[in-house]
């Protein structure tokens, strides 16, 4: 029973790969978005088994619970029939697909080349302690990055408001 943790990790990883494949294979964009939600949830499971429990929780709250709600909302409410056709046909999108596939393949090969398998073993300390360790690192060693991140989020918020103000396209004044 002690080997259940690693086994669960591989189960979650397999589910993750399956859902991620479903995201790009599904012809219906709504289904794609919902598969992406499941991908995010299984990614949280993978994080959990890598002993990053707080990150797993954050993955659930931020990605599955916030970002994907926005995505699903947008995709459900747009009539995306035309956009769908524009995405699936045409020379530019075909070239983009080939390019991104090549990019991902290169990235994968690069990762496998550098990784030495089976050398790391995570220590099984208490979960709260791991999060406290994370806090210790975040607010001492990486405190500058933490503050800059606050600024970055502010800039994004301002940008989002500015973009929503643009009057043009279908929202042009009559």
């Amino acid at each position, binding site marked *: 029973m*002690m080997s259940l943790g690693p086994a669960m990790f591989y189960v979650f990883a397999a589910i993750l790969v399956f859902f991620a494949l479903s995201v790009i294979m599904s012809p219906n964009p709504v289904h794609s978005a919902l598969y992406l939600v499941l991908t995010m949830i299984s990614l949280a499971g993978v994080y959990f088994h890598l002993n990053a429990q*707080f990150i797993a929780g954050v993955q659930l*709250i931020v990605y599955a619970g916030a970002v994907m709600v926005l995505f699903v909302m947008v995709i459900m*409410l747009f009539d995306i029939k035309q956009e769908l056709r524009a995405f699936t046909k045409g020379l530019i999108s075909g070239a983009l697909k080939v390019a991104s596939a090549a990019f991902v393949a290169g990235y994968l090969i690069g990762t496998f080349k550098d990784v030495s398998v089976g050398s790391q073993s995570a220590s099984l300390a208490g979960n709260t302690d791991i999060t406290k360790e*994370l806090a210790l690192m975040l607010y001492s060693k990486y405190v500058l990055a933490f503050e800059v991140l*606050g600024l970055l*989020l502010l800039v994004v918020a301002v940008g989002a*408001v500015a973009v929503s103000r643009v009057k043009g396209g279908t*929202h042009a004044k009559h």
Partner: protein
Amino acid sequence: MSQLLPVVVLAIFVATFGLLLMFLASLFGAKGKKSATKLSSYECGVEVAASPTTKIPIKFYLTAILFILFDIEIIFMYPWALAYGDFIEAGLGIYISGAMAVFLAIFIFGLFWEIKSRALEWE
């Protein structure tokens, strides 16, 4: 030992439970005749007027985006709050409060800017 296994088992059990309820309902449910009127979308008996996928106010998207940003900022306070007592005990109370004060100042500035710029107005 996996802490997550019971969660997965419970999720599967609950889903099975829900499917079973729906299966029972379809088994015992009345078998009425289906007609075009019965199967049409319910709009209080009036003829279906417009497609559901119409234009939606951009306010909803803006709200969702702003929510994500603030949510991330709040998440960053969790490890801080968790370790706050330890930091104080280690004599670093002033330091950790200062680090968060800067972050919170940016947060508060952002929030009040959103309110001031009327990005959160619903009329």
